[in-house]
């Protein structure tokens, strides 16, 4: 027989003014199984909590119902109080007689009746509550950081410096990401390489970090604290241990006219190449799609010149497996290229370039050594038009969001151009200037006021080439949508920042969700910005949404803090509100028939197959099993299960069924159980 205590809170006047709390307590005292029922001014106060604790001891309670505010408010408070008094916290539930009753109804008999109903329902639930115990999951204290851009680097270093092992996987031959391509960074105009390269080197040298470049994720299985990852190390065709990075091979390689990815197609590289001089690791790769030997079967020049015999034409992809406890996704973003814009010539005009290309032109290590020159003829452009929101905020282009970084980098570009080409004219067509951020607005004002960048508020309808000039047609909406036509030498499109190619497949491999634009989805837009819906997988940087460097770094440190917190314990404790598949005596073993319809419905891939075997090893039956590490407790499987073989702890079939029964059986409230 249950021994339930009911505690009705007045919440000062909040409940007491509308609901006759004394009467509620009296009525509840009459419910069979309730051995103690009281009301008090403030249940959540210390004296209130002590009342509960004392009652648990004095009356030997087996369940506690607090009729007060929303469980979303004070459930943890009261459960903790119960635990302190030696009662399993999951035997305590709250009836919401404030938000759902006293605050939304007038003072009346009916309102008090309703409060009694609400408490009675919870009494019936608690009667069927079972003691639950937090789930302990062991934690492998190694983190996987996916992506070697600034976000990945920051996350890896923070985790490694906290004393945990990190495996970093980067798909290109070097870490550094987009930041390594940038010339100077807003709003301070400090050189991107200068602040980034020391970090890159630190990653390579850190004893806690294992770096896999030119590698991709093959698969990820398991759950928080206990993932298994398979990493495909693509064949570099170079023995990394022997290679000294002398660079002789890249100098001698006869195939030199391959557009360089690092220089955004404005510079050239050889078939065996190091993406850029400061690359980490400074070891070349052979691009097998362009290498003469791989295409035609002869050449092998690099092999001949290599002083350490490090070239390996027959190298194959290898798979590395590792156990890890947490993942940080920092795979970054991409930008739309000029060929996405029919109105600007589908990329046909060489002097219509995107923002990353301008970064390379402005970079001291770029193809023009930092001089601003037109890609078509190498002349210094006298007039440059910058077009902000190229693609972004444009539903017709399918990109409705703001790419966030363009306002600032476009101001920076115009400023850099004005610094480098004296007397050059810089125009920026913009929709709005979004310069929210520390020193950002000041930076834009500087571009306008000190560097004479001309801002035109309006959109560019068309760019076309005529007699060696790019004619930019737009409108100036501040002058009453007056048409504007500018003869430019170069046009720079601040193209939309978009998710990486393959983001969708990666998300599916990692079991994380993504939004309509293929950016990875955070678990909560405000309160869980670095978590994903999959426990143990975190987000950092622009793979979640377009971000600038400080934001990416901040989020990376946030993700690293989350990982470090996870790794601070040997075991992980989780709420036991999870689904379980029942077990019963032979010959049934479980009422589960193994149809696995629940498996398809589970949003977390938490349902596994478990084989029940006899002592001799013969398979008796295969049934579903819920992985307690993965289950988040939504209960979708429970509603799908025909045989009621799966149940949800804390919201069991028995509990919710009793709630429905109790709710409507006002007259039979005293009928007993």
């Amino acid at each position: 027989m249950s021994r339930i205590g009911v505690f009705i809170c007045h919440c000062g006047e909040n409940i007491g003014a509308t609901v006759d709390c004394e009467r509620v307590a009296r009525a509840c005292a009459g419910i069979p199984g309730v051995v103690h029922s009281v009301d008090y001014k403030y249940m959540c106060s210390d004296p209130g909590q002590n009342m509960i604790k004392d009652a648990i001891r004095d009356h030997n309670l087996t369940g506690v119902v607090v009729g007060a505010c929303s469980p979303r408010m004070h459930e943890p408070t009261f459960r903790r109080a119960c635990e302190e008094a030696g009662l399993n916290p999951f035997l305590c539930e709250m009836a919401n007689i404030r938000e759902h009753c006293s605050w939304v109804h007038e003072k009346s008999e009916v309102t008090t009746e309703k409060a009694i109903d609400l408490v009675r329902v919870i009494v019936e639930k608690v009667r069927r509550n079972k003691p639950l115990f937090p789930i302990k999951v062991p934690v492998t204290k190694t983190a996987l950081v996916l992506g070697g851009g600034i976000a990945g680097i920051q996350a890896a270093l923070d985790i490694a410096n906290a004393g945990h092992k990190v495996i970093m996987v980067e798909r290109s031959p070097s870490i550094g990401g987009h930041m390594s391509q940038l010339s100077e960074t807003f709003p301070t105009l400090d050189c991107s390489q200068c602040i980034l390269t020391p970090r890159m080197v630190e990653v390579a040298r850190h004893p806690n970090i294992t770096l896999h470049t030119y590698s991709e994720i093959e698969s990820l299985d398991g759950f928080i604290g206990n993932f298994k990852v398979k990493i495909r190390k693509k064949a570099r065709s170079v023995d990394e241990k022997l290679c000294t990075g002398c660079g002789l091979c890249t100098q001698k390689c006869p195939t030199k006219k391959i557009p360089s990815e690092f220089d955004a197609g404005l510079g050239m590289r050889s078939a065996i190449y190091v993406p850029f001089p400061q690359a980490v690791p400074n070891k070349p790769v052979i691009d097998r799609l362009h290498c003469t030997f791989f295409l035609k079967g002869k050449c092998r020049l690099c092999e001949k010149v290599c002083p350490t015999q490090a070239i390996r034409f027959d190298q194959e992809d290898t798979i590395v497996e590792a156990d890890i406890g947490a993942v940080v996704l920092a795979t970054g973003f991409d930008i739309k290229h000029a060929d996405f814009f029919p109105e600007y010539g589908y990329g046909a005009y060489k002097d219509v370039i995107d923002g990353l290309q301008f970064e390379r032109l402005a970079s001291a290590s770029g193809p023009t050594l930092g001089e601003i020159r037109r890609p078509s003829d190498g002349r210094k452009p006298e007039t440059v038009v910058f077009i902000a929101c190229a693609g972004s905020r444009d539903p017709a282009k399918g990109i409705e969001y703001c790419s966030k970084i363009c306002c600032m980098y476009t101001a920076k570009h115009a400023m850099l151009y004005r610094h480098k080409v004296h007397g050059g004219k810089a125009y920026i067509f913009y929709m709005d200037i979004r310069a929210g951020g520390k020193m950002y607005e000041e930076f834009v004002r500087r571009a306008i006021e000190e560097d004479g960048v001309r801002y035109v508020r309006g959109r560019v309808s068309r760019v076309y080439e005529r007699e060696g000039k790019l004619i930019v047609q737009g409108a100036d909406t501040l002058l009453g949508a007056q048409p504007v036509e500018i003869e430019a030498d170069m046009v720079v499109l601040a193209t939309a920042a978009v998710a990486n190619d393959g983001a969708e497949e990666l998300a599916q491999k990692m079991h994380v969700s993504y939004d309509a634009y293929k950016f990875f989805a955070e678990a909560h837009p405000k309160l869980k910005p670095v978590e994903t819906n999959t426990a143990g997988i975190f987000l950092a940087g622009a793979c979640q949404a377009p971000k600038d460097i400080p934001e990416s770094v901040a989020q990376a440190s946030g993700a690293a803090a989350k990982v470090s917190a996870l790794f601070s314990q040997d075991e992980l404790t989780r709420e036991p509100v999870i689904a379980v598949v029942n077990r019963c005596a032979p010959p049934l073993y479980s009422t589960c028939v193994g149809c696995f319809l629940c498996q398809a419905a589970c949003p977390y891939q938490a349902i596994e197959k478990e084989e029940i075997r006899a002592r001799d090893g013969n398979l008796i039956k295969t049934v579903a099993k819920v992985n307690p590490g993965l289950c988040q407790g939504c209960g979708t499987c429970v509603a799908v299960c025909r045989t009621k073989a799966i149940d949800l702890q804390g919201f069991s079939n028995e509990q919710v069924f009793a709630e429905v029964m109790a709710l409507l059986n006002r007259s039979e409230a005293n009928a007993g159980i």
Partner: protein
Amino acid sequence: MPEFEPRIVAFVCNWCTYAGADLTGTSRIKYSPNVEVIRFPCTGRIDFMLLLKAFAEGADGIIVSGCHPNDCHYTSGNFHARRRWILFRGLLDFMGIDVRRVQFSWVSAAEGAKWADVVNTTVEAVRKLGPYDNYRQIARSGGV
């Protein structure tokens, strides 16, 4: 004879509609007291049999409410629920059960006012329909 007061049972998810109803309270928006809420983690958890049970136990109307599509705390529980309700509601209608008495809605944690509106309109609609005599009659056959 006093006016008929319908009894409405609401099955709601914890993360959106329950929180939305909390907000109705915090905002002190008044609504009809004829509704009583049963909390579930997710609409995906709500067994269709519970709706029948509510009718059998004397409910005149039912509200089922959860997170808007794409807002589910568990990513997709509400999508599964929606399919279940589409089919279940059709079947009930086909069997002559009055689906006007079952209101489905998406109420987010920010839609306190919408919750009050959903409750009030459902109560009024069911009040017009009167007590669910058909179902009560067969429920009595079961001795309920």
